[in-house]
């Protein structure tokens, strides 16, 4: 009974915390961007502006939730739901601290990769169902970008998998007790972070919603609650990638003094802050640059990393016998 209650609590926590972080990010990101750009950002509503989140939420819920008459209605409604489901369900396989996980699957990483591919569907369907040229262009770009970045996103993780000998995120984090994987797997770390940025469609890679060329890309036609879901989905996605970077490369819950869960949260927030810093610093890539960068630099790099890691691990095993 107690075990069941504990499990239920964990599930609720895993559902609620990413949402909380994501909605907090709508304010936190603006404040951080402002900090990097010598401004203040939203600081009027409540202490330091935190209630801006509530104000924004209220505003967006009050807006008319308009489905354009030319849109493909069922798909149009379905698309924003998919992105939330796909990103949120990936949190289930994360292990936040010893014993705190919804389901530490032995194929956790594969599950995450599959789910992040599912999120592409949301963008594609949104663009397609909108029946709008800008939305379609946005989703075309999204597909091109996410498919090509997913390739080496998966490959960059394989080094970690080889070293830890498991696809389970819990086991991978446990293997980092003495040395975080960001040291031996520095290439994988960098490649995964970049791929993660592309996966969440954040600024150097925000071509699918490039507002200066495509209005708002794939969610041009969305408003009200559905738009809020896309927005939240993006922030949940950032949280997810940050949590994964933490779990895979930054030693997850390992850390002195503080309790493991706090360490995990802290590291995740630092990674998120880094993502925001990147957004503040870098301009948007051109599409051909994006593709060239992905296929000509990142893919060979991650392949090489995989090769070297495999060789070194084999060599070490050879030494043992």
């Amino acid at each position, binding site marked *: 009974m107690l075990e069941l209650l504990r499990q239920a609590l964990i599930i609720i926590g895993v559902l609620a915390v990413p949402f909380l972080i994501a909605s907090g990010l709508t304010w936190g990101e603006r404040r951080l961007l402002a*900090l990097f750009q010598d401004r203040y950002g939203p600081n009027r509503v409540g202490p330091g502006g935190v209630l801006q989140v509530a104000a924004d939420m209220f505003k967006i819920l009050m807006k008319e939730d308009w489905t354009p008459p030319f849109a493909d209605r069922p798909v149009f409604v379905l698309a924003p739901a998919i992105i939330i489901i796909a990103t949120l369900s990936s949190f289930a396989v994360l292990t936040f601290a010893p014993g705190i996980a919804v389901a530490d699957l032995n194929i956790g990483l594969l599950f995450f990769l599959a789910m992040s591919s599912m999120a592409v569907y949301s963008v594609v369907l949104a663009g397609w169902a909108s029946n709008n040229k800008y939305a379609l262009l946005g989703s075309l770009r999204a597909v091109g970008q996410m498919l090509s970045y997913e390739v080496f996103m998966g490959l960059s993780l394989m080094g970690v998998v080889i070293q830890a000998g498991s696809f389970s995120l819990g086991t991978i984090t446990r293997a980092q007790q003495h040395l975080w994987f960001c040291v031996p797997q520095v290439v994988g770390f960098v490649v995964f972070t970049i791929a993660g940025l592309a996966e969440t469609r954040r600024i150097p890679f925000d071509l699918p919603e490039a507002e200066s060329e495509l209005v708002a890309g794939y969610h041009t036609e969305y408003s009200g609650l559905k738009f809020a879901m896309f927005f939240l989905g993006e922030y949940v996605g950032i949280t997810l990638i940050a949590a994964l970077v933490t779990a895979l490369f930054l030693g997850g819950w390992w850390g002195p003094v503080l309790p493991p869960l706090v360490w995990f949260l802290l590291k995740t927030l630092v990674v998120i802050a880094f993502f925001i810093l990147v957004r503040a*610093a870098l301009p948007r890539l051109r599409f051909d640059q994006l593709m060239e960068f992905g296929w000509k630099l990142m893919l060979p790099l991650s392949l090489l990393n995989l090769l070297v890691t495999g060789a070194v691990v084999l060599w070490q095993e050879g030494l043992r016998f």
Partner: protein
Amino acid sequence: MLSILHTIWNVFTHAFHRRVTVRYPEEKRPLPPRWRGRIVLTRDPDGAERCVACQLCSVVCPVGCIALQTTQDETGRRYPAFFRINFSRCIFCGFCEEACPTCAIQLTPDYEMAEYTRPALVYEKEDLLIDGTGKYHDYNYYRVAGLAIGGKDKGEAEHEQPPVDVRGLLP
């Protein structure tokens, strides 16, 4: 690649720079005295209205937001019967101030004119007229103009000689 890292680092150091935002309602930027803001109608040093209702400001105004009507009092001084500026149209270009021959209409460094309704932005003469002289402290049109009004005849203005009797033979 290195330049990208450099950029990121550079932007990061900005986190420790002083913020440039002026938090407006609490702190205000000092405005130069010639700042073009809310328009006032000034009075001359004697406390009389400067405006002679010549309509020049109304004519020069590019958006046509000044309306006034000319009248005269019993001493012969011209003054506007009403003087209306629609600030919801005014673009604060300052042309009216330049056109005014009597330095009556002046723009002031005040921009806090927000209202909840549009009609509230239409300022009447009572709202525009101030008690001071504005930017030009000593200027008094009727004291330098050759115009005869009640209490001041021709030739009594500053730097003015009494009129010459052109038909007279005396030197």
